């Protein structure tokens, strides 16, 4: 049977009533964060947009696709820029971890018609090696 790792020694241990009092006091901070997060999200939606002037054409397993194509029948698009340079043996572990958290089913949810289509952009730079800073 595996032994549980040691916990931090000398951590404060209190009665239930004191535990609850401390938790409720902290709850006020969490509520503040929740309300702040909602407000930040609202303000994010108010940020100005910039028009995309270039016609980006990407390579995909089914051929070339434009940025417009990536929207499919949706109006909104999220692109995750997955780190994978052409001279790397494999893509980034952290980006793999991010990808593990993409809720791909949101594309088929009832609300998807006006929401997002997640599309990571796989980077490879073989034709850009001569580009200067």
């Amino acid at each position, binding site marked *: 049977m595996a032994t549980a790792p040691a916990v931090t020694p000398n951590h404060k241990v209190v009665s239930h009533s004191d535990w609850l009092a401390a938790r409720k006091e902290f709850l006020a901070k969490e509520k503040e964060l929740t309300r702040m997060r909602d407000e930040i999200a609202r303000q994010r939606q108010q940020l100005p947009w910039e028009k995309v002037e270039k016609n980006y054409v990407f390579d995909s397993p089914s051929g070339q696709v434009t940025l417009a194509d*990536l929207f499919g029948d949706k109006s909104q698009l999220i692109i995750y*820029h997955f*780190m994978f340079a052409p001279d*790397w043996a494999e893509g*980034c572990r952290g980006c793999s971890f991010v990808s593990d958290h993409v809720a791909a089913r949101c594309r088929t949810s009832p609300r998807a018609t006006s929401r997002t289509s997640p599309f990571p952009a796989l980077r490879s730079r073989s034709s850009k090696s001569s580009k200067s800073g």
Partner: protein
Amino acid sequence: MSWNFAWVSSNSTDFNYDYNVSFTKDQVDNGTTGYNFGTQRFPEVEGPGASCFIKDEAGNIYHTYSSFGRGLDTMINAYNWLDIVPKGRDEANLMPPMAWVRHHDKYPQSTQQATPTKDPGCCHHEIQ
């Protein structure tokens, strides 16, 4: 991988340069990557980021938002769970902090904690 989203390559475009997640070797060497809206250096030719777009009925496309570095934290829900346990993310003694992270198909099959890799990899989670 059981991932259910589409992949495209920006190989033949300026896309990832324009959206500030790809850098030339010169930029990395000179410390002029300007990652995260010009606020940070990035030590690799590739950096993480997410970008959002909207398309109107006339077909015009607008860039609405991009986020980089720790701004991507909220997309990693495992961290939200870890933030509610006593030891939190438990990354203080790891360098880089995300050294415990593996590719999707390379985690050990058992529940034993993976040994942090000494390979610095490409993740620079210390970038705020």
